[in-house]
């Protein structure tokens, strides 16, 4: 039987939404879903090599005054960092990270080498639309 498909438009480059995306992704790979993540706008900034593992470069999506509390609580609860969730999901399941070509350029990322090594490719919008059309679950985060 063919695996179910999840398509995720990852618009956000915020710590909390990236973490939420990682948690959702983990649940989906546990269920053997194939996942295609399309990294848009500020999401592409978070995927830059120099940014991804540097929390100082990433903020909360809202209520920024809770940023330190969020980070401290995640540490206390042994919650993985967002990029660790993403990498683990890729290790366990069929997960692909596609960077939007335009979004990458906004932040100076022109080639796939400019992004984290676990990013798969740079794509155009048509790929995302096709994946969204064919997905069992589609999320915009």
């Amino acid at each position, binding site marked *: 039987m063919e695996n179910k498909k999840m398509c995720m438009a990852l618009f956000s480059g915020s710590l909390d939404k990236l973490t939420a995306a990682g*948690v959702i992704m*983990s*649940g989906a*790979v*546990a*269920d*053997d879903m194939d996942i295609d993540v399309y990294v848009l706008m500020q999401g592409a900034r978070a995927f830059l090599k120099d940014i991804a593992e540097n929390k100082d470069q990433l903020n909360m999506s809202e209520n920024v005054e809770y940023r330190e509390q969020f980070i401290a609580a995640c540490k206390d*609860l*042994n*919650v*993985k960092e967002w990029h660790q969730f993403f990498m*683990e999901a890729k290790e*366990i399941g069929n997960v692909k990270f596609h960077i939007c070509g335009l979004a990458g350029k906004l932040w100076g990322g022109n080639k796939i080498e400019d992004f984290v090594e676990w990013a798969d490719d740079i794509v155009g919008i048509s790929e995302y639309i096709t994946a969204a059309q064919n997905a069992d679950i589609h999320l915009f985060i």
Partner: protein
Amino acid sequence: METTNLMTIVAEKTVDARGTACPGPLLEAKKAIGILEIGQIMEVLSADEGTRVDIPKWCTKQGHEYLGTLEENGYYKIFLRKN
């Protein structure tokens, strides 16, 4: 399965995920189930309330048999059989 029966189970694999919050235990279970033979039993140790609900549902979706949960001192022992 009744509690008394659960207490007699000797699992072939123990996944101790007490140090992680959701979705850590579920992912640990997912990784570990691959190394079990069909028919073997795994126990997942978790202090996470969400996991207590998640694992039985995951078993149903994945076709494994959820055997039951024992409440220990501050954590749960969740038993399942690989199918």
